[in-house]
């Protein structure tokens, strides 16, 4: 399921309301944010070289305008190329998945792994293998691939079965079904995914720039941070956010222009996740499903190992830094010191899991609360949602230093960062879910004079449960990656920091083991959510 898809829907609905009202609300939201910021900067953080005032940042934006444009051009070009290639790859793979269930079964987990891989840890490896802008482009592409794959697959599957039957009945081939029915039906959720991909690609490119480069928003940011140009750090962060936000809303506009029916019908992209095994009727018993899962898992693991070893072999990478599956196995299981290596990794993992769970909990609780407020009061929606959408597109690498400065380098920061990763997809998805009850029951509630509170509890909350789970699929691994990022950039604990230290100290067996562990655990979290999701969807399923 695509949180992406629901993001599009939520915005579509917001747009459906009176435009003037929306504008006023957004303006009020923005003004409130600015006032809070001014107060914080002027009273709480004054004189501590942490937070400039909004006026100061505005001045900084003007003063550094040529620097901003120059660097933005570079970053945008990297992000745009990554966006294009990543999305293209995702669309192609989605088409393959739709054509062949076998291919999907074999490859889906690799795709999930690409999403669960800590890109900050593989970035240095890409930097060795690739030249110039390429590592940044690849990181941007990796950042968009999975969400688009999920969105596109869900879209292709959401095709109207009657229409498909028609094509088949008239002797149409699978190709005809694809071109005449499926592609058209996939457009709304594809566009929604492309929309989320815009800020994600920018984030990937900026992370890449932290590896080094002549120019780019990330490079300028490193320099501004090191030079204690606090105003410039903020100007760059806001500028990056504005660019990401522009990409987001521009894609949204194109989507509404290209697929007017999606908004008009208020249709929701299907909530079926690819390969989750939940979309079809539950054939067979639990044992059969477990057996199938295990064998698929083994198949995927084998595929991952082959891809990994092949990557090293084909590129002819030096064994000093390119550790293969055998090296990692030796490092954690067989070689001398394997026991010590394992306990080092376990300790780091425990910290990261704590960080990620706290962040996930905090982010989810806040998101559910905010979603309830949004559906209950129109004013909250028009004030809060635009601000939330803007905040969502602030690149996390840009935000981390600001959060660290404000909240310190402890648990609070890491919770905040993992929480932010969780908050936005959950908010958008749960808002969509709370809105999903059919019109009929809503009318009945209203006819019987039920309060909006009663409607919320009796009707909306049960119908939103599936969306909570479907957002968890994206949000829970996201919280893991957010925690790793925060540990890397800020707290100096956990897997994030362990991988950073390993990379700088040439302990590449440890680095690769850390990457594998993070990926496997994130993917396991993803799969675990899927297992819980299945019965919940069956119980509360909307279709």
């Amino acid at each position, binding site marked *: 399921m695509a949180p992406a898809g629901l993001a599009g829907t939520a915005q579509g609905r917001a747009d459906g309301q009176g435009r003037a009202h929306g504008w006023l609300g957004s303006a009020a939201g923005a003004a409130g944010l600015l006032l809070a910021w001014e107060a914080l900067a002027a009273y709480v953080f004054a004189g*501590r*070289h*942490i937070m400039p005032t909004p006026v100061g940042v505005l001045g900084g934006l003007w003063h*550094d305008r040529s*620097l901003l444009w*120059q660097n933005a051009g*570079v970053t945008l070009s990297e992000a745009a190329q990554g966006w294009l290639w990543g999305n293209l790859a995702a669309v192609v793979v989605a088409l393959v998945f739709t054509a062949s269930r076998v291919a999907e079964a074999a490859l889906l987990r690799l795709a999930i792994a690409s999403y669960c891989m800590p890109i900050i840890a593989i*970035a*240095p490896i890409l*930097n*060795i*293998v*690739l*030249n*110039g*802008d*390429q590592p940044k482009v690849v990181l941007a592409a990796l950042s968009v691939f999975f969400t688009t794959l999920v969105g596109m697959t869900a879209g292709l599957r959401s095709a109207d079965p009657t229409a498909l039957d028609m094509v088949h009945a008239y002797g149409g081939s699978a190709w005809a079904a694809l071109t005449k029915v499926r592609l058209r039906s996939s457009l709304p959720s594809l566009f929604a995914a492309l929309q989320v991909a815009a800020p994600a690609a920018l984030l990937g490119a900026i992370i890449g720039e*932290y*590896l*080094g*480069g*002549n*120019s*780019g928003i990330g*490079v*300028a940011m*490193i*320099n*501004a*941070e*090191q*030079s*204690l140009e606090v105003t410039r*750090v903020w100007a760059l962060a806001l500028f990056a956010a504005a660019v990401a936000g522009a990409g987001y809303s521009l894609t949204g506009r194109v989507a509404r222009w290209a697929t007017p029916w999606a908004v008009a019908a208020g249709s929701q992209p299907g909530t079926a996740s690819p390969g989750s095994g939940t979309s079809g009727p539950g054939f067979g018993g639990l044992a059969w499903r477990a057996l199938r899962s295990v064998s698929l898992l083994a198949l995927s693991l084998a595929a991952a190992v082959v891809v990994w070893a092949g990557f090293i072999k*084909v*590129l*002819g*990478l*030096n*064994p*000093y*830094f390119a550790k293969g599956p055998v090296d990692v196995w030796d490092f954690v299981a067989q070689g001398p010191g394997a026991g010590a290596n394992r306990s080092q990794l376990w300790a780091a993992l425990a910290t990261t899991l704590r960080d990620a769970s706290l962040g996930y909990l905090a982010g989810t609780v806040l998101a559910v609360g905010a979603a309830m407020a949004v559906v209950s009061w129109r004013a909250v929606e028009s004030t809060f949602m635009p601000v939330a959408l803007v905040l969502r597109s602030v690149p996390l690498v840009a935000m981390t*230093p600001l959060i660290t*400065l404000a909240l*310190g*380098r402890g648990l609070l920061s890491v919770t905040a960062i993992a929480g932010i990763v969780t908050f936005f997809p959950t908010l958008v998805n749960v808002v969509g879910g709370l809105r999903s009850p059919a019109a009929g029951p809503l009318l009945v509630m209203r006819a019987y004079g039920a309060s909006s509170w009663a409607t919320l509890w009796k009707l909306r909350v049960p119908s939103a449960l599936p969306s909570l789970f479907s957002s968890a699929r994206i949000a829970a691994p996201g919280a893991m990656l957010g925690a790793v990022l925060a540990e890397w*950039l*800020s*707290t*100096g*604990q956990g897997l994030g*920091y362990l991988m*950073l*230290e390993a*990379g*700088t*100290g*040439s*302990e*590449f067996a440890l680095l690769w083991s850390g990457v594998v562990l993070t990926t496997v655990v994130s993917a396991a979290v993803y799969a675990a959510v899927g297992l819980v999701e299945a019965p919940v969807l069956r119980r509360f399923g909307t279709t």
Partner: protein
Amino acid sequence: MSPQYTDRRTFLSQALRRSAGVAVLATSGAGAWEGLLGSGRAAAASLHPAARSLGAASLQLDWIDDIEFAGSYIARSSGYYQRAGLSVTLLPGGPNTSVEPIVVSGKALVGISGPDLTSAAINNGADLKIIGAQMQKAPQAIMSLAKRPINGPKDMIGKKIGVQAGNLLSFRAFLELQGIPEAKVDIVPVQFDPSPLAAGTVDGWYAFITNEPFLLAAKGVATKSWLLYDYGYRLYSGTYLASASSLDNPSERAKVVALMKGEIQGWQKAFLDPTLAAHLTVDVYGKSDGLDVRTQQEELGAYQKLFQTGTTARHGLFWMSPADVAANIRTLSLVGIKSKPSYFTNEILQEIYKGSNQA
């Protein structure tokens, strides 16, 4: 300043990008990356045909463009590399760059790193040699606010010291050298931005004496700093490294010699003409970074004190004396980084200086 130079820079990057497109179309798999690298180099080499062309090579820096690479900028803009027959591409680094694997992979012929990281890499199987040392004295220092100064190593006990990940190894080594148990100092992991010290979140900052004190001074924050070197932490910094295999291969070795000759001449010039160095850094290389000329020039003065010692006056810049190498190895052994005299070699410098102290 040398418009030809700026043009060259843009031209080069376009040439690289254009040839990249062709290379990717023409080849596939492993060949693609090699073809890309090769054609990029060929394009670069053809721009400035030298008297005896050795081709092209890359130098991997360990940070984004700033004054600490001024010698390389001058070597390029004044044509010192070209005169030595080599077209050099400077690869900027960043906070997450690992220089050693980039040199091992052959992406860069020579890199700039530290003796700690390079020795660790050699111990982990990297076939590398340290071929020169820019800073004879490591710039690592403990910086504190002038109003709450930390006056010496023992003063750090019970204080919060901000240390970046890449510097943890060396900070721990220093504590051990001073006989200060690690538990007695509160090490706070930080990134490169010194604002936590300015904000008072930490009491001390693991700084580079060439950098942070000037940045904070420019912000009106007075600081006090002392070099770890002056308390027995005798370590080089900004050491050049190359693959041992490129030193053994005559044509690669000639490139290394040419590159290092350009580096030496560039740095000799930088100290003679700090204004040129600062302007090249601010207006050409770090153009999109928004650097400040005065700060960069002041920093260059601080670098000069670390580059130039009695040893370099006798033998030339970057020279590594046996006594200093032995001191480096002792310092490194404190953190359990094994290092040996055989990890360091003056052979390239010998080939350049031939007994003189100028290149």
